[in-house]
């Protein structure tokens, strides 16, 4: 294998020699492997063999990123990048990159994951569990993620990391409107059980049974983990300083203020054992656990070195050099069992998954999202039938302020389009959540 750490270092040295005050180079190897399936059989298997990288330079506060594919042209690419920077516009808000070097905790991917050649049996295990639980049709995806990074910065960082994870997502259907979804995430092969996701999806699908038309109104709601993961994404994913400053977050000017009920404590935590674990951010700053929300109060935005300076604070180790953000979120569990959450609902809903979350105003947090898969009525603490065709229409901060209880039981989830980063999430109970439906 080529000396990518050396290439990364040479690019940074060349950029600084040409006049860049700051330079960061990250070369990454993508060895991902994926199997997609539908109708209970595999549609396509995909494999990637990319080696690419990016270079960031700051020349007199003129910032340029470039991607690099062909490392035989690395010198030329660096020269051109610095040249483009000189012709660009100054960013007076730019506050530099982190000064290292740093020490990192050791991390090693599971060899049983990196050496996995064929995910067919794992896919079949998930499908069969779903069918056994009641699914007639399944569709989903198996991923073996395996990425290795070689980072070098003019701030004195020289670091490598390799992360390998397994992920499985399965939607089980008995008909178009009788469906359930389950996911499984693991950093160790021994912890990976796709049949759990299949079984859960199949059980939800089976429980739906000819859903009736849902009614608009305010409901007390028990959220399953995929749905609550999406709602966490709307807080953790909008806590980045970039989103806050671009008008894309309801959290602007709310640090130190209550934004959720006092049972809500949310961490950004790339040190936790999740698929989002990584030893350092894109500047090489060692990962740390950040309290985003503590007992309902917003404690911080997520920063890189530059945005931290704008907010007169310290980096939270969440670079992205343009847009800092979380790689893993953890919602602190509560002290209820899942059953106890249901017992506290006299007349409400149990929602299992959602998609298409959109805002009327990111500043006010007025939004809607569309429950998909099983939506169940709860009456006197028990499931009492299922419904369809309703839309959660509410305010995201209002919803979190009405979060009344969380379960002890948690699950790591991530899901296409809604839960963007691995998130450890309990079940939740919120009161008086707004729902609307098609009028005609």
């Amino acid at each position, binding site marked *: 294998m080529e000396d990518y750490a050396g290439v990364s270092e040479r690019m940074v040295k060349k950029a600084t020699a040409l006049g860049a005050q700051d330079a960061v180079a990250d070369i990454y190897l993508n060895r991902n492997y994926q199997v997609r399936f539908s109708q209970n*059989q595999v549609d396509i298997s995909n494999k990637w063999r990319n080696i690419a990288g990016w270079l960031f330079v700051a020349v007199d506060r003129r*910032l340029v*990123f470039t991607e690099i*594919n062909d490392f035989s042209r690395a010198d030329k690419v660096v020269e051109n990048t610095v040249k483009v920077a000189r012709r660009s516009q100054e960013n007076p808000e730019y506050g530099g990159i982190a000064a290292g070097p740093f020490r990192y905790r050791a991390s090693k991917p599971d060899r049983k994951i990196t050496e996995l050649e064929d995910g067919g049996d794992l896919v079949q295990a998930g499908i069969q569990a779903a069918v056994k639980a009641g699914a007639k049709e399944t*569709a989903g995806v198996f991923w073996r993620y395996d990425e290795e990074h070689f980072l070098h910065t003019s701030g004195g960082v020289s670091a490598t990391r390799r992360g390998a994870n397994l992920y499985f*997502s399965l939607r089980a259907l008995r008909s178009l409107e009788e469906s359930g979804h389950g996911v499984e995430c693991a950093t160790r092969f021994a912890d990976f059980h796709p049949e759990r996701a299949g079984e859960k999806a199949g059980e939800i699908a089976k429980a739906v049974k000819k859903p009736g038309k849902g009614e608009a109104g305010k409901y007390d709601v028990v959220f399953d983990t995929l749905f609550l993961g999406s709602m966490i994404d709307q807080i953790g994913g909008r806590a980045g300083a970039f989103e806050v400053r671009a*008008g894309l977050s309801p959290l602007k000017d709310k640090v130190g203020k209550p934004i959720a009920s006092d049972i809500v404590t949310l961490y950004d935590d790339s040190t936790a054992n999740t698929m989002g674990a990584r030893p350092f951010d894109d500047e090489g700053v060692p990962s740390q656990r950040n309290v985003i929300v503590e007992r309902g109060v917003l404690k911080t935005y997520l920063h890189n070195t530059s945005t931290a300076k704008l907010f007169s604070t310290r980096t939270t180790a969440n670079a992205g050099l343009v847009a800092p953000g979380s790689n893993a979120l953890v919602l602190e569990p509560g002290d209820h069992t899942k059953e106890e959450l249901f017992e506290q609902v006299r007349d409400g809903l149990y929602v299992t998954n959602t998609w298409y979350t959109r805002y009327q*105003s990111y500043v006010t947090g007025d939004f809607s999202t569309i429950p998909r898969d099983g939506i169940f009525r709860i009456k006197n603490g028990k499931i009492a039938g299922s419904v369809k065709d309703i839309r959660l229409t509410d305010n995201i901060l209002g919803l979190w302020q009405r979060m009344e209880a969380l379960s002890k039981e948690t699950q790591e989830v991530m899901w296409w389009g809604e839960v963007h980063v691995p998130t450890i999430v309990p079940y939740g109970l919120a009161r008086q959540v707004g729902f609307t*439906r098609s009028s005609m």
Partner: protein
Amino acid sequence: MADRDMADFAVEHAGKQGAQYAEARVENHSTESFILKNGVLDALSVSDDFGIGVRVLVGGSLGFAATNRLTKDEVRATVDDAVRIAKAVKRRTPIEFVQEKAVKADWKVRERKKVADVDIEDKLEAVLQIERELVDTKIPLPARFFQASTNRLKKYFTNSEGSKITSYSPRIRLYYFLTAVKDGDVEQTYRNYGWSGGWEALEEWDALNKVLAEARSLEKSLKEGKKSPEGKWDLICGPQVSGIASHESCGHPTEADRILGREASQAGKSFITPDMIGEKVGSPEVNVCDDPTLKNAIAYYEYDDEGVKARRRYLYKEGKIHEFLQNRETAAKLQTRSNGAARATTYAVEAIPRMANTFVEPKDWSLEEMLEDVKRGIYMKSFMEWNIDDKRYNQKYVGREAYLIEDGEVTAPVRKTVLELTTPAFWSAVDAVGKDLEFEAGFCGKSDPMQALDASMGGPHMRLRDVYLR
């Protein structure tokens, strides 16, 4: 071109490894993009991404592999990967591709102002000028966000049936997002423009005047906007609303892979089943098309990513489901022909059925004629919040710029008009379709890995009778 040789080699090698069908796409995306946030250039990004994707059909199973290292050894290893992972799968029902003729072609999009000839300083200046004029309006806009990008996309497609197609399609995009405030009240808006061609795009869009008009409408909504009334009203949709409805509740539900369940776990399924061609879904006034061959539209192409010639598709015709968006795999399953809808965002992902430029086909009404017949109604010129369920049946659009219509006249602005109704209810309520036609660009999301693809959507003004609004 050495890269073409690599693609030809990949297909030849796949055949030797036992592939019954093989195709290779070499792509080069030369991009520039930048973000202006509140007048400050956050960063400029330039890249030259290239690589090869190889898809093989072996024993009725599909394998796909991609690499960005175009050496013979690496391409050979990539093909071997694709063949190996395909062979590892045993399907009950073998995948087949419908027969399509081999094509040799070379197509290019013409640039009046070549993207490569415009200095980055000039590109920045064009957007900075909009930003400066926006600030000069003194409208309170505390968050202003612009993103501009160019992509000079070169492709070479070849397959084991003898197709060899080269293409060049430069694409320009401008996105902006504005936040206006007044006394603690907030209105937000975004717009997305797209163009296949050269840097003349900015003039063609008339971007400066459009952004300024949008800012003034934000201010007007905040100053004069009243709560939108509730009840059954006539509704006139502007082109932006016609466009999003055509994309969400016509284009998506007619994607054949979705109908067949291949997207069920991600972007979902469809209320449409394979046997519903000819079924009524709207009024006879409604024709919704998807057309990759519209000159200068962001999703312009002449051949799709399976080498099939592009053409206009009537998805809903005279209010009935008319045609699905097909690639060669779905067409074989549904015993029809591909209609050239196979698209992929990059060389590194498979091509699947996608929309290109989706729109309500114009008819002969002017906006004034539509208004004349409306005693009381709402003119929803644009929207902010929208979504639709994953079977594409229950949709919602919340007005951004909207006005009351009283006795045929557009009067006071109203805020946050909500239209929430089913797909048949939406299209069945249409009684008049305008003769104008406008498009906006978007990124259409589907597949896993997520393929956020260049698309556009549009339409004329359109009148819906007696729909429930709140």
